[in-house]
């Protein structure tokens, strides 16, 4: 009898604990929902948002809702805080925050770029799983807890660069690329596959390379007119061709990016 009474007391205590935990979780969840906001941190030059079909000036401290279209003018920028993450909307950009939600499962933000470029510095919200997607007309990039630069232009297509961490870029037509280090993802509009990730380093040396015995004036001349003359001093292959029967001295300093 005494044992059963003690058991009942224990069960009541457990129920109490569960309900208190439930209340605490609910309060944290509501606090989390309240935290989900997009705020304008700073504005330089012309920056506006669209409301009822009209462009209105964007101001520091302003709060923006889901689906707001934001646009910047020439030489302008706007910095937005999306919870703890920072979004730098660079000049001549039009973008939209499609969705921004915090649930007990995680934080989910989806931004779309019509044209222009943004820099996104993503930070996790507490211990929540943080998803940050940036879409353009050709592909979507997905980032978790790092930084990325995304550009979209009609001619260039989508360009993604992640100075640190890992970024995924892909679309629903079979493109899926993992980006790390100094690689750049470029998917031009209308193309089925992205360019090689180190395309921007192809046919280029990191430093100008000149054949031996050139005077400074000759180096200046090659620097200015080499491309037009078809004599590209920057092409290491050409220099190697000329050096086949001679000696070349090369001083190379390589700094690895962490």
């Amino acid at each position, binding site marked *: 009898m005494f044992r059963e009474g003690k058991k009942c007391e224990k069960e009541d205590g457990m129920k109490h604990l569960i309900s208190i935990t439930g209340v605490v979780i609910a309060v944290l969840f509501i606090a989390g929902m309240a935290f989900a906001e997009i705020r304008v941190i700073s504005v330089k030059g*012309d920056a506006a948002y669209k409301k009822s079909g009209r462009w209105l000036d964007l101001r520091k401290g302003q709060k923006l809702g889901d689906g707001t279209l934001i646009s910047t*003018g020439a030489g302008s920028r706007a910095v937005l805080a999306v919870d703890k993450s920072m979004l730098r909307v660079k*000049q001549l950009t*039009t973008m939209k925050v499609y969705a921004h939600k915090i649930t007990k499962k995680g934080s989910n933000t989806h931004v779309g770029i019509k*044209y222009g*470029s943004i820099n996104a510095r993503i930070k996790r919200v507490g211990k929540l799983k943080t998803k940050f997607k940036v879409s353009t007309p050709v592909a979507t990039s997905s980032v978790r807890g790092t930084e990325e630069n995304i550009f979209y232009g*009609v001619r*260039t297509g989508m360009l993604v660069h992640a100075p640190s961490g890992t970024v995924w870029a892909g679309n629903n037509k079979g493109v899926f690329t993992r980006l790390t280090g100094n690689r750049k993802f470029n998917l031009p509009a209308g193309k089925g596959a992205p360019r090689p990730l180190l395309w921007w380093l192809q046919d280029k040396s990191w430093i100008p390379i000149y054949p031996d015995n050139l005077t400074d004036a000759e180096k200046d001349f090659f620097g*200015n007119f080499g491309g037009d003359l078809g004599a590209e001093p920057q092409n290491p292959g050409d220099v190697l061709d000329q050096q086949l029967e001679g000696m070349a001295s090369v001083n190379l300093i390589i700094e690895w990016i962490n």
Partner: protein
Amino acid sequence: MRKVQILLVILLFPAILFAQGAANVTLINQIADKPVVNTGDAVSMFVLILDERNRGFDANVATLTKRNIVKDEKLSENDPIRQGQLARMIARYLDLNDSLMYFLIPSNRYAFRACVANNIMAHDGGEWNLLSGGELIEIMSKVSVLAGGGEE
């Protein structure tokens, strides 16, 4: 009465400036949606890149002439702009004289080549090509970065 007028102008000046910001953004977005842009659009974009006020076609052309971006060519507001014409204005603005052929023959053709060499325009086009609004915005964005006016 005069004091009141001066006071009103001083008080309204920031409001006029703010309204200009939204007006510029409206104009840029209107241009961006055009399938083919005209000379008036290109001239307006150039003026915005120069951080000048957009005051209508004639005043904008005068601003560009003052800066040696437009010289003796006759510009008509409603004519579609060719890539070569725009390239020539860009080459003058950015002083792209390091291209030997453009340096020797400053024509639309070699201005376009100079813009391609500087990654401002795409190599698969030509100086006679027309431009869409999206293309014009992308080109002018690159010009602004090269001129030191905006972030890459």
